[in-house]
């Protein structure tokens, strides 16, 4: 038992900095995912076949490509092409964000369509303008249905962020720190236990928050 505590107290700063880096990467990726995801989701729901197709291609590309391959494609590919040199952190956050954005776009699209054409028609027939229908009828309801799935996506994104530390990007996140600590002390269970707790703190806290939001935002019909 003492071994477990000793590993923690010896390496606490490393664990914490890894934990914080994971949080930072997830935060940056979250911003990208939301901006891009909402844009692409809007394209998917737009009343234009051309825009729909662009959104469709984006979603199917980023949703079906493995994140690891995307990271190699972006980082190894672009750096070796010598066009621009990318910062590792920015490249990682961008890959994770763009990858998650495809899922965000899909949940936004389904949220918008869940509102139902009937309500749009009802709004229009009551004399609302297109814009008013969107801002006063569709969006307030769509946002409520969309928030819980997006919360789940953020949890998945946090787990995916470990790939950034494990791949060639070698961002100093919790995973990479754990590997470094293991390489210095060779105590497998002790080292990985604390990292496990670190990851569980993030994901389980978020799961609880999402569940709370789910019940609070549920539309009672």
């Amino acid at each position, binding site marked *: 038992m003492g071994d477990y505590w000793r590993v923690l107290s010896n390496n606490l700063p490393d664990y914490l900095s890894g934990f914080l880096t994971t949080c930072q990467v997830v935060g940056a990726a979250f911003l990208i995912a939301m901006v891009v995801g909402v844009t692409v989701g809007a394209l998917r729901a737009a009343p234009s076949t051309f825009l729909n197709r662009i959104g469709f291609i984006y979603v*199917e590309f980023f949703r079906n490509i493995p994140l690891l391959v995307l990271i190699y494609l972006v980082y190894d*590919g672009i750096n070796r092409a010598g066009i621009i040199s990318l910062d590792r952190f920015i490249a990682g956050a961008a890959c994770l964000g763009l990858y998650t954005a495809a899922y965000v776009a899909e949940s936004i699209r389904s949220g918008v369509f869940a509102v139902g054409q009937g309500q749009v028609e009802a709004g229009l027939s009551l004399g609302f303008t297109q814009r008013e229908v969107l801002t006063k009828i569709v969006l307030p309801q769509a946002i409520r249905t969309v928030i819980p799935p997006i919360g789940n996506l953020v949890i998945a994104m946090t*787990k995916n962020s470990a790939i950034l530390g494990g791949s060639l990007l070698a961002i100093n996140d919790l995973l990479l720190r754990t590997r470094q600590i293991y390489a210095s002390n060779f105590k497998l269970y002790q080292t990985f236990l604390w990292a496990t707790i670190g*990851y569980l703190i993030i994901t389980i806290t978020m799961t609880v928050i999402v569940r709370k939001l789910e019940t609070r935002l549920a539309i009672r019909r």
Partner: protein
Amino acid sequence: MTYLFDAGNWEWITSGNNLRFIFQGFLINLQIAVVAMVFSLVFGLLLALGNLSKSKVVSVTARTWVDVWRNLPLIFVLLFFALALPGDWYSAWEDNVPSFLPSAYENGRILAAILGLVIYNSAVMCEIMRAGIVSLEKGQGDAAASLGMRYWQSMKLVILPQGLRRMVPATVSQLITLNKDTTLVSIIGIREVVRHAKTVTNANPFTAEFVKGPPLQVYLVIGLMFIVVNFALSRLASRLEVGQRKAGTEVQGDGPRGSGRLDGHDVTLVPVPTPRRRK
């Protein structure tokens, strides 16, 4: 853009057996995904039954097990098992591996790869199956019990056939995720498509006579392979979903929309406004 479509940067595709080499790696990924999926289905079902067990000890244990593995990053799990499995296991595997298997399987770490993928995905599958079973009305189980069925009989004859049918679309989309996740086993040293890509993109004594592939193009080709397979799978998933709705395996009690079959008749459920209570 000019870099991307420059003909010189695509020469590697026809040079030597670069493309075939990449494709062989991709097949390894698919094989690992299928093997891991089969095991995950079996263990996922056991975990789901454990989760729904009447015994408190069993259900709490299964619940905790599933919640821990499901909430960890897969790559973390894979790294853990790669380090945790005893070296004897690896050498035992490497000594006894059948020769007809592709060379990727000669590495003992394939055990850790499959084990990690199965432990993580069986936890995810457990959640999908549990949701499928729980979504059945409680009356189904009660009806089976009132017909005198035992627990296992009602599971086998009433609950599972309906519950498992509901989880088919979710299972296919999990298979897509698993398919993508198999690339992570390259990090613990399995020679699959990402490793093969590294060979093609780097100057390597074995491939010296071949044209080296620029990473952007090589990984784009790999990405397209995954996109083709996964897109086909996701089409399959949505078709199954529609087919299920048509077959009318379910008529939702509270959902006010949709249609289905009830006692052999096609029924369409129309929205009925819930009476609002006056204040």
